[in-house]
């Protein structure tokens, strides 16, 4: 394991590793999914799989918003930005994600007015500063970013700013977990629950996973000590044959979440009947659309959206990797046609994507460049 002395409580790491070896039944194979892309990044960065016994397998979940967005949505968003006078605003993470005819950054190079913003409210500010233009904010993210979009919509309404709209791609984590549990080719024994998403939604929304599905879930922090301790908590439950929601990240995550954030989301968004996820297909009630009250700021109602559906490049196996059926290195394009410098699939773009994490920490280990990190665009 890397950089061990810099971690919080190195002793705890040693104790947790020993406890994991003691609790893990050598005759059993454990499949534990970390739902959040931030955890995927941390696990690879810290080399945590090196300290786990070989019968504990970590499966990388769907919690990387850039990675689960189907290419058709990127194409749709970019098509709207071709309308005259439209400014396409998005987070830096989106800029290198390939659409059928190139990424937003490549469209910018061809003359499209594409701007990086660090906050949805900066997109609104861009609209205030450019009254003759229309600013379309390409919104992505789980519940960590959705409340900020919600509040920005409320501000646009209260200030009466009409040259602003949101192309909404916000998704919610719970239906994705349900889809994974319902999928016949995915056998998961337990879940490491997302850390910062849970500061918004709290721990209650996970209760059905334990109660109805009998799977333990532990909401976890991001340091090695946190993740190892969460695995200890999961193994304890599995060895006792119980299933509960536990909160390892209590120092940050309140059990009830952030009510003001949830209220803002409830006011501005509506659940879409279904939404397509890369790798997981259509999942019902898994994404947020914009509520009728805010229709004037809904890019999908302000403009005509084509509703493009694009299948991923044939050779790329993003879907299988996203579902954990294949490891990134098992994809035919991995490290050859598809690298963080020239990504074919979205999993290679974001530092939270499992392909980029594998490439930077596992693949380069073999080539002597292990510690290089892809910085987000």
């Amino acid at each position, binding site marked *: 394991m890397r950089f061990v002395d810099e971690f919080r409580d190195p002793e705890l790491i040693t104790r947790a590793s020993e406890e994991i070896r003691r609790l893990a039944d050598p005759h059993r194979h454990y499949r534990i999914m970390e739902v959040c892309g931030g955890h995927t990044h941390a696990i690879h960065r810290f080399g945590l799989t090196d300290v786990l016994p070989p019968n504990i397998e970590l499966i990388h979940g769907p919690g990387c918003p850039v990675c689960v967005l189907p290419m058709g949505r990127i194409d749709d968003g970019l098509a709207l930005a071709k309308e005259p006078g*439209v400014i396409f605003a998005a987070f830096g993470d989106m800029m290198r994600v390939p659409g059928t005819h190139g990424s937003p950054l490549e469209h910018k190079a061809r003359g499209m007015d594409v701007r990086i913003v660090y906050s949805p409210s900066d997109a609104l500010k861009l609209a205030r500063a450019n009254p003759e233009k229309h600013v379309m904010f390409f919104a992505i993210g789980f519940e960590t970013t959705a409340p900020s979009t919600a509040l920005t919509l409320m501000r646009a309404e209260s200030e009466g700013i009409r040259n602003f709209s949101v192309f909404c791609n916000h998704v919610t984590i719970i239906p994705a977990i349900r889809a994974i549990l319902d999928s016949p080719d995915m056998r998961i024994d337990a879940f490491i629950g997302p850390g910062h998403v849970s500061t918004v939604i709290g721990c209650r929304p996970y209760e059905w996973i334990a109660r109805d599905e009998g799977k333990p879930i532990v909401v976890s*922090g991001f340091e090695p000590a946190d993740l190892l301790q969460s695995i200890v908590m999961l193994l304890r439950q599995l060895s006792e044959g119980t299933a509960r929601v536990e909160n390892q990240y209590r120092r940050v995550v309140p059990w009830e979440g952030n009510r003001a954030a949830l209220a803002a989301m409830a006011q501005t968004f509506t659940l879409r009947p279904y939404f397509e996820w890369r790798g997981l297909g259509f999942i019902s009630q898994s994404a947020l659309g914009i509520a009728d009250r805010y229709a004037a700021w809904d890019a999908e109602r302000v403009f005509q959206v084509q509703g493009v559906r694009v299948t991923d490049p044939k050779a790329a196996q993003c879907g299988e990797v996203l579902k954990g059926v294949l490891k990134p290195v098992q994809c035919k394009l991995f490290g050859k046609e598809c690298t963080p410098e020239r990504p074919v699939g979205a999993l290679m773009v974001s530092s939270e994507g499992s392909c980029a994490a594998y490439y930077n920490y596992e693949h380069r280990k073999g080539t002597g460049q292990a510690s290089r990190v892809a910085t987000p665009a």
Partner: protein
Amino acid sequence: MCLAIPGKIVELSPDLPHLALVDVAGVRRKVDLGLLQDDPPAVGEWVLIHVGFAMSKIGEAEAADQMRTLKLLGEDAAAIEEVRGYGFGQPEPTEPQADGA
């Protein structure tokens, strides 16, 4: 985007109560407090920030933990770059205007 950035509230805006000046590792920018309206933070308190909005209040020790986590993950530079990019309360003409459609 999913990893929160810790910041210390250094100044509240009396005229714009939803904005506060925060300090993130020496970089000072305005962030939006609208999502903490049930329990607004005071000057000197610490918050976790996502995309320009304070999302939860935390203790000083947790803030230090979170900054170290970002460092260990190699995400601290990107986090500071994000905070530098927040444009709230900045004069309007600072927006890049060079590449109009």
